[in-house]
């Protein structure tokens, strides 16, 4: 059956099925080429977009890209969809949906109202018909507000994750990086460590140190050790201080199995974390990370392009009311996203798709040393994402993660975004910064000197804790 065809520029283009149309309509990227799914020519890519533009949105309800019977993520998507919410846009084509999203009538409220009616496949599909500016313009309208000890996602705010990783999980080394980040006003989304050694006793030691630091500084922020969700369950059983429960997730049951998780274990962890009641201004307790290429690298992509599989991961995340979600966009390497151009495009797509599906979407603006990218590309992506109303960005000392061996943003970059875009941290955290005397004229973060008593107090506390 070749129901998907178009005549363009004197050529006839035919596509076997829906997932082929989606893959070939995707902007060029190395992961789809590696999977053998990408358009053969630029002309074929545009032909696929013509075909996609004319498909009714409803086609994604009739044709599952990953079979319902084989995959619990597909079942979650289909069974959990709100048909009433979809009604206002049910008559649209994918192209018509693009125009609807950009229309002035589609304000934040209207976008929020249709969110529960959308499937990730619809959202991924429409993103393929949108230029970068469209992805920014629409995402900017869709604020998603979540809360734990801080409130994230409010207009005029940009959150940040303080990522104080250390190659051997040295407590003092981590505390020093936390102090460094706090001096730049970073950490309102989460203070979160990727442990070098992922086991229960090590994670508990890190959590207790972070919790003591938080309490001694009296910081309104949440902490997290990004250990496997099954470890987090065990750690909660042992009554260690768990604020946010972390897990990497992907867009198919098989890919999630590769991460050692399924929906049942995520549900168990979510319920256990809710029961702790540790949030003060809200109870969003989950932290998910995703990234294009995760499903393909696990050979669990079902012949579907990597961006659509990524959007399906957001369906997993939204089932658990997360506090934060971020795409680790450039971490996976050049075989999935080759260069700065591909990383920037993917970052904007992921943010747009996450927001449209109702997620508090952030981004680790990052790259590895074998990708064709550098800090100039990161400057571009972080600026674009801030314009797009991104929930939070990740920052590490000097943009160099010395444990995971890749480059992210530096704490300084958050100062730049604050100053050039006029964005601030979450209100609770901003109030803390003001109490600490760290907010200067025009909302800038002051640079503290050694002679400043506030500085010596922070230092003393760092020494005491670690």
């Amino acid at each position, binding site marked *: 059956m070749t129901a998907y065809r178009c005549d363009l520029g004197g050529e006839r283009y035919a596509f076997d099925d829906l997932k082929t149309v989606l893959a070939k309509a995707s902007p060029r990227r*190395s992961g789809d*080429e*590696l999977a053998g799914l990408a358009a053969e020519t630029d002309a074929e890519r545009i032909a696929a977009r013509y075909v996609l533009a004319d498909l009714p949105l409803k086609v994604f309800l009739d044709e599952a890209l990953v079979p319902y019977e084989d995959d619990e993520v597909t079942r979650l998507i289909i069974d959990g969809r709100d048909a009433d919410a979809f009604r206002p846009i049910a008559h649209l084509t994918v192209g018509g949906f693009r125009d609807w999203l950009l229309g002035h009538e589609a304000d934040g409220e209207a976008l929020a109202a249709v969110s529960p009616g959308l499937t990730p496949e619809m959202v991924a599909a429409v993103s393929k018909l949108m230029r970068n500016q469209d992805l920014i313009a629409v995402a900017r309208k869709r604020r998603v507000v979540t809360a734990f000890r801080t409130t994230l996602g409010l207009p005029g705010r940009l959150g940040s994750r303080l990522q*104080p*990783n*250390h*190659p*051997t999980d*040295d407590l*003092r*080394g*981590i*505390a*020093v*990086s936390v*102090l*460094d980040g706090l001096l730049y006003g970073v950490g309102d989304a989460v203070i979160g460590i990727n442990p*070098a050694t992922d086991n229960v006793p090590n994670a508990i030691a890190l959590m207790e140190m972070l919790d003591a630091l938080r309490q001694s500084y009296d910081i309104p922020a949440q902490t997290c050790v990004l250990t496997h969700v099954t470890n987090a369950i065990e750690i909660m059983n042992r009554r260690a201080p768990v604020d946010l429960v972390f897990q990497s997730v992907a867009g198919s049951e098989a890919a999630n199995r590769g991460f050692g998780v399924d929906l049942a274990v995520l549900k168990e962890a979510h319920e256990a974390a809710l029961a702790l009641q540790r949030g003060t201004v809200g109870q969003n307790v989950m932290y998910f990370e995703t990234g294009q290429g995760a499903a393909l690298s696990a050979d669990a992509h079902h012949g579907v392009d990597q961006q659509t599989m990524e959007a399906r991961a957001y369906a997993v995340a939204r089932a658990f009311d997360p506090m934060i979600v971020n795409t680790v966009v450039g971490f996976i390497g*050049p*075989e999935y996203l*080759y260069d700065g151009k591909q990383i920037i495009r993917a970052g904007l797509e992921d943010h747009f798709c996450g927001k449209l599906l109702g997620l508090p979407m952030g981004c680790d603006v990052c790259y*590895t*040393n*074998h990708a064709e990218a*550098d*800090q100039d590309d990161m400057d571009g992506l972080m600026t674009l994402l801030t314009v797009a109303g991104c929930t939070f960005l990740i920052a*590490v*000392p*000097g*943009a*160099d993660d*010395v*444990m995971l*061996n*890749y*480059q992210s943003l*530096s704490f*300084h970059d958050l*100062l*730049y975004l*604050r*100053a050039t875009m006029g964005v601030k941290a979450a209100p609770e955290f901003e109030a803390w910064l003001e109490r600490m005397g760290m907010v200067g004229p025009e909302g*800038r973060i002051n*640079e503290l*000197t*050694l*002679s400043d008593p506030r*500085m010596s107090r922070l*230092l003393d506390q*760092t020494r005491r804790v*670690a």
Partner: protein
Amino acid sequence: MADAPGNVTDLWSPLRAATSARVGLGRSGDAQPLRAVLEFQQAHAKARDAVHLPLDVDALTAELGPHRVVQVESAAADRSTYLRRPDLGRRLDEASAEALDAEEKGFDVVFVIGDGLSATAVQTHAAALLHAAVERLGGLSVGPVVVARQARVALGDEVGERLKAKLVAVLIGERPGLSVAESLGVYLTFDPRRGRRDSERNCISNVHRLGGLSYALAADKLAWLAREALRLGLTGVKLKDDVDLLAAAAGSPALEGG
């Protein structure tokens, strides 16, 4: 290009000892001071050069003497293809496959030296480590040293299969970081053949001179693992489980070269 103000430098110097992270950089307005920017760019440049500079096979061959060297190429024709297509880096090109088929066969151990993601690491460490390892493998038959360009770890499977080796040891450049751009990894695979999974290998990572594993210690581990693999008839998770001591000493997780 001024240094950070003296008091800030003094303040951070005891703290810096606790971490290799770039803490206490100071500020120029909201930005990093130029010195920090240039230091970062220099480290990134070294890492990129490690990825992109070609392996000097002739120089390496000279250092490997008296061992006989067979040169091969993967099916990835150039660096750009190699980076995009890991699958091609795991296969030999046709000429290399034919050349290997013409070689003598049947060895206990065959060493494959592959550029991986850091030719710098291979250029710096591979010959020294190989000599140290072979010294410790007395009594075993060791095949010619196969030097492979545009190689991923799994290329060793095809090489070992064609040479009918019981065990293949792949010495390969690991993905460079900003702090260490020249780290070598070793992957041991028993009964190598195409399609082996990563869980069927044992890895010794972080061989380098900036606080990493020394040649002697890496060679000790390699020789121990090689003899155990030949005795038990396996490599991978099951072998590693019996060697707590070695696993613990191996340090941080492997930075996959392949």
